């Protein structure tokens, strides 16, 4: 699931300086689940913006809308189609893909991101999310017992722990964080597949990945 976090209000206000009526567009999928860009956060951000501009003479006028899924053209047009002509700028609270879909559709109006898309992750506990996958395009999980060293090891090593693992299996760089390779070792040990750790794995060739990635279904 894509996890995102809202930008501080200062940054958003600077983006919007000079524009008087704005459309704040939320998204009902991933960013709702991680409490960043859902309908509730659209309401909160709009209230903040209105409060911030209540001091000036002609304050901001804000339209609020929430798209079912901002990375789908049809849904964006269906939800925002009739609202965009009335505004000067769009503040999108979707993830990076959402912002760009809206920007591609409404070329005439500037589209600003209200969130920083952070990572692909899972909820650690209610209200807190942690990164699990770096979308590196060449999954290594089969050889590491289902724990991704590229993301969960601070140095992204593929061949076992660095020399600095702390007592209690904690990471050298961040004492609170578990060392990924200690976790991998324990799990493989439990499954009796420790031989995987004796093999040598080539370092990943990050340059080979052509950006932006493209996936085409066979039948498309």
């Amino acid at each position: 699931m894509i996890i995102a976090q809202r930008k501080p209000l200062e940054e958003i206000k600077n983006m919007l300086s000079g524009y008087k009526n704005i459309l704040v567009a939320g998204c009902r999928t991933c960013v709702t689940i991680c409490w960043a860009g859902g309908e509730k956060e659209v309401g909160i951000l709009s209230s903040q913006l209105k409060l911030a501009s209540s001091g000036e003479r002609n304050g901001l006028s804000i339209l609020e809308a929430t798209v079912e899924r901002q990375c789908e053209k049809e849904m964006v047009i269906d939800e925002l189609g009739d609202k965009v002509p009335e505004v000067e700028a769009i503040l999108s609270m979707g993830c990076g893909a959402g912002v760009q879909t809206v920007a591609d559709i409404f070329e005439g109006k500037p589209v600003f991101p209200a969130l920083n898309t952070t990572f692909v992750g899972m909820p650690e506990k209610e209200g807190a999310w942690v990164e699990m996958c770096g979308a590196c395009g060449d999954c290594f999980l089969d050889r590491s017992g289902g724990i991704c060293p590229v993301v969960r090891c601070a140095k992204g090593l593929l061949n076992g722990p660095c020399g600095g693992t702390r007592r209690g299996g904690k990471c050298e760089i961040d004492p609170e964080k578990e060392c990924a390779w200690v976790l991998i070792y324990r799990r493989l040990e439990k499954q009796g597949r420790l031989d995987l750790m004796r093999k040598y794995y080539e370092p990943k060739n990050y340059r080979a990945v052509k950006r932006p990635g493209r996936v085409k279904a066979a039948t498309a």
Partner: protein
Amino acid sequence: MNREDNKIVAFCCEHSAYQAANKAGRTRLYYPDNVRIIRVPCAGRVDVQHILKAFEKGAAGVLVMGCQEGACQHLTGSTRAKERVKYAESLLKEVGIDGGEVRMVNLAPDMAQRFIREVKEMAEKIEGR
């Protein structure tokens, strides 16, 4: 509602704060009249958006009044309300409202005096601005 009226919106939990307000009335104790009490089933019902909307509509101060933390009938109602008020405070600080205009208060049904003291403190804080 414009800011100069200095209106205080008080979200009062019906089990404790709303009863304390009634007790203050029944014992004829006076407190400033710019308070508007909104009855909620539990302090946990008050959302950050309600608090921001209250300020957006022109409230000068917001009080979220719920039960004592160990005595909430819904166990985590007051604790959740406290966290949301803290979050609302940080959001309001970003907007320049950082004089303590939003406050979480823990009351019991018999604390009429405490209810009045909280309302008076908030009223003075807003006048002082």
